[in-house]
């Protein structure tokens, strides 16, 4: 017994230790992760984000360094708070509250103390930084906008949100990501690829060199520069014209589908969303729920198109063979279709054939053509669906497929829509129930970019390219294949020429004759679209939207444009003038009709926009 006690203890100890080691090293696998968290720090090396140029090579967006003051609370030593606050231009109370917030987040991990110092603030601070232990300055790269326009096109970058982090493992908390416009659309191309360094830490969290001599490390690759189809001068001019108005301008080069200008009004200076006041400015823009500066009316606004839609009614009528070019149709101040009241029309010569119908925008003429189109088929359901198929071939009623991250489908109603609305088969409905579609009122809704798309198709006499904003990726010289694919419509190309003639007459003799510009053959179509809103649950009619679509020159067109001015009344009053100025600016580079330019630049519709919110009765269409 006495001989064996120690021997037994030694053996038992050996077995216990072996079991303990087995438990620690083999059975419980959590220690592996713990040691990695402990000892390996991942440091990212962020590449320069790609620059953005306009179609002529003008630099729109570059990068600027920005400096964040960071803090690691546990490393902070007592400091001269007053001096530090003075350097940072904050109060002592600010200091205490920010410091508390950061300490609650983590005492060991760095957090942002003051974000985005300017260069001069940085210069003043950096030489005194050694005095403040636990604080340091971290350099970041932010966008630097060379222009004060195009905010809706360019978009902005912001800190990546948690949902994106979950979906895309590339991003880490606190990193920046493109959040709107081309910054979002071409994020992958612009951002490049960040480099990764694994760094071995010691127990004081100090770096002691690369992990495994850096065999897992990668170098950052710089983002690609991109060239946009935007013409910066035209875009800038468009935004100036739209000051104090709401709506949008969209201009496209018909032979390529390149977007020359995309103006959404009201807009904002893109620089507002960079720097120390970013979040303040952002909430100001975000919470302006009436003017909605962050809302792109060109891509997201669904409007009744009004009279420009008549060109499509004409084209469909011709294709369906329900109207001859020279057939004249009478108008007696409106079109009587047996309803409670007739579809009214303004005063003009009568009877009119197609070209005259377009030039004078005769409601009766297009109501007749539309009704014949629908009634050509045994049932109105079939008629509507055939009519709809033609419109879909113009890219209407669905997303167009352009390369910007927001959009709306618009609405081209089908038979289902009306069946549901009129509770078919309990009640029947007929072509006359949808008669307003003929003149672009009714149920039809288009976004301005859809309107310019059908205008482009007419300018091209029968085809379009998907509108796009990317001209090329610098160094790669490519754009996606879908933007070089020609889209033909279901309308025979020979029917387009008479519609073009009609639109030309609109400019020479018709509803847009007031905007004539010497030396430019414009083809256009005015629109005056009725519209309603609800304020506090009460539906009320507002002043009509002013609409104009056009292209120029008539032969071999260089620009197609759609202008939409909310509550601008007559198509030619605001939209027509703006379109004319834009066309002249683009084609000639200077403006000959200063009177027209002054009228638009100085004109304001703010009074009109405030009407429904005054709470008092108001008059419209003045």
């Amino acid at each position, binding site marked *: 017994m*006495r*001989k064996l*006690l*120690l*021997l037994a*203890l*030694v*053996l038992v*100890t*050996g077995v*216990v*230790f*072996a079991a*303990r*080691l*087995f438990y*620690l*090293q*083999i059975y*419980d696998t*959590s*220690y*592996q992760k*713990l*040691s*990695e968290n*402990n*000892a*390996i720090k991942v440091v990212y090396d962020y590449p320069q984000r790609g620059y953005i140029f306009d179609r002529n090579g003008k630099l729109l967006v570059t990068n600027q360094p920005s400096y964040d003051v960071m803090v690691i609370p546990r490393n902070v030593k007592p400091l001269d708070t007053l001096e530090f606050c003075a350097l940072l231009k904050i109060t002592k109370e600010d200091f205490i509250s920010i410091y508390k917030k950061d300490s609650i987040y983590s005492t060991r991990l760095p957090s942002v103390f003051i974000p985005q110092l300017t260069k001069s603030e940085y210069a003043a601070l950096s030489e005194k930084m050694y005095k403040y232990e636990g604080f340091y300055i971290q350099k970041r790269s932010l966008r630097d906008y060379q222009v004060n326009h195009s905010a809706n096109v360019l978009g902005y970058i912001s800190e990546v949100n948690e949902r994106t982090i979950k979906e895309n493992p590339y991003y880490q908390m606190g990193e920046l990501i493109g959040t709107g416009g081309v910054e979002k659309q071409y994020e992958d191309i612009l951002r490049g690829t960040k480099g990764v360094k694994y760094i*071995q*830490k*010691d*127990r004081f969290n100090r770096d*002691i*060199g690369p*992990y*495994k001599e850096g065999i897992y490390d990668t170098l950052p690759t710089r983002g690609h520069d991109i060239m946009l189809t935007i013409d910066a001068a035209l875009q800038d001019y468009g935004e100036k014209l739209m000051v104090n108005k709401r709506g949008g301008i969209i201009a496209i080069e018909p032979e390529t589908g390149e977007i020359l200008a995309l103006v959404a009004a009201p807009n904002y200076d893109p620089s507002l969303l960079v720097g120390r006041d970013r979040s303040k400015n952002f909430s100001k823009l975000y919470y302006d729920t009436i003017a909605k500066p962050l809302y792109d009316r060109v891509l997201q606004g669904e409007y009744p198109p009004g009279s420009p839609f008549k060109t499509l009614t004409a084209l469909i009528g011709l294709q369906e063979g329900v109207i001859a070019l020279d057939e004249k149709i009478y108008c007696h101040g409106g079109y009587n279709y047996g309803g409670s009241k007739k579809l009214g029309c303004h005063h003009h010569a009568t009877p009119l054939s197609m070209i005259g119908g377009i030039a004078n925008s005769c409601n009766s003429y297009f109501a007749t053509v539309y009704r014949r189109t629908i009634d050509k088929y045994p049932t109105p359901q079939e008629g509507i669906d055939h009519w709809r198929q033609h419109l879909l071939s113009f890219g209407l009623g669905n997303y167009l497929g352009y390369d910007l991250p927001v959009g709306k489908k618009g609405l081209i109603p089908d038979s289902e829509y009306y069946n549901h609305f009129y509770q078919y088969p309990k009640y029947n409905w007929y072509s006359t129930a949808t008669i307003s579609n003929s003149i672009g009122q009714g149920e039809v809704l288009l976004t301005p970019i859809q309107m310019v798309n059908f205008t482009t198709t007419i300018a091209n006499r029968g085809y379009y390219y998907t509108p796009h904003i990317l001209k090329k990726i610098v160094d790669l010289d490519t754009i996606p294949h879908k933007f070089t694919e020609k889209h033909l419509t279901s309308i025979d190309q020979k029917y387009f020429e008479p519609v073009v003639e009609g639109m030309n007459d609109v400019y020479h003799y018709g509803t847009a004759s007031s905007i004539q510009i010497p030396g430019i053959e414009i083809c256009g179509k005015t629109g005056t679209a009725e519209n309603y809103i609800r304020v506090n649950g009460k539906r009320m009619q507002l002043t009509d939207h002013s609409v104009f679509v056009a292209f120029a020159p008539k032969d071999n067109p260089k620009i197609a444009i759609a202008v939409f001015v909310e509550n601008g009344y007559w198509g030619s009053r605001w939209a027509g003038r703006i379109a004319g100025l834009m066309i002249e600016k683009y084609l000639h580079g200077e403006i000959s009709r200063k009177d027209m330019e002054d009228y638009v630049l100085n004109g304001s519709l703010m009074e009109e926009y405030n009407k429904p919110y005054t709470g008092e009765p108001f008059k419209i269409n003045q």
Partner: protein
Amino acid sequence: MANFSRKLQLDWWTIVLYGLLVSVGWINIYSASYTESTQAFFDFSQIYFKQLFFIALSIVLIIFILALDSKFYERFSSVIYLVSLASLLGLFVFGKNINGATSWYAFGSFGLQPSEFAKAATALALGKYVSDIQTNMNEWKHQIRSFLIIVLPALLIIAQPDPGSALVYAAFLFPMYREGLHYIFLLLGFMAAALFVGTLSIGTKWMALMIAAMALAHFLFRLKRNKRPKWLRYAFVTILCIGFSFSVNYVFNTVFEQRHRDRFNIVLGKEVDEKGIGYNTNQSEIAIGSGGWTGKGWLQGTQTKGNFVPEQHTDYIFSTIGEEWGFLGSLAVVVLFVSLIIRLLVLSERQKSIFGRVYGYSVASILFFHFFVNVGMVTGLLPTIGIPLPFISYGGSGLWGFTILLFIFVKLDATNYIHS
């Protein structure tokens, strides 16, 4: 000298195991102290190079020990013991204070720690006294004398203060038990050690509660088995234990000076772990646990490189082994230790002289105690008590002390064997 090699029947098992442990030690000390920026290998300021020097000197020591006549150790054991005590006493005059303990004689940049050599001296003195023909381990007088031999150096070491090294002297209870000491002393010794460490680790209040709870549980257990336990005896033992805990606490807080307390806290690992969340043990477990089956590879341990485990080249060297060599590597080290200790026990039992047997048992017990406490601490099974892992941990005095301790026995065994 022609006789010399013929007469020496060295136990090669012990020597090979010793060699393996020292090699494992150096390889892992290299890893624990190596940094990327280190340029020259022959740099005397580097820990791994110093250890290489200590190993070289150990070989000189071994040759010297084996060359001396084996009778020398028995004959001069009292002298050696007294010299050793003197060297411990001398520390209070000439000693150098390092990390709050006056345990060192400084020679330039080198230090000697007499407490590491005192173990061998004590083992010799105990062997000598117990093997005396008149000594009977069941007589009070003899018991007290042999305890005095052990406690004297231990008290001097506590006073340095170096409580970890002093605690090791409890290991001498094993050879005494082997020679006929009543088992109750072993039990009491174990209890005293547990109470001592427990009180300083978790405090008297918790210790008292634990003691009371354990006594009550045992009492009720006996009562249920209808054994009619004497409650008075239980109360007495409980009060005695709690009293001991309190007196440890009292001595610690009142008699000791702050420097003593600081040193105790270092040994008990409370210094690095100021928040009391078991930082050292935690990091050590992470290091070992992340090793997996085969480890991260030599010099590849992230815990080791990051210096997450405090004192890793000394007391916590086993965590480096665990991290870089994995389960297989650390198990191999455990097997090496168990084999060496068992080998020593086997050798002790075959000694002809009681002196040789007691000495051999002392060596085995001391190595076992160090191994048990150190690996137990590093793997998180025992509370933190800072004592080194023999032959493996960094340190000149430690390595030499254990080498002398071991090779005196190798020499005793070699001659003993021949004479038989």
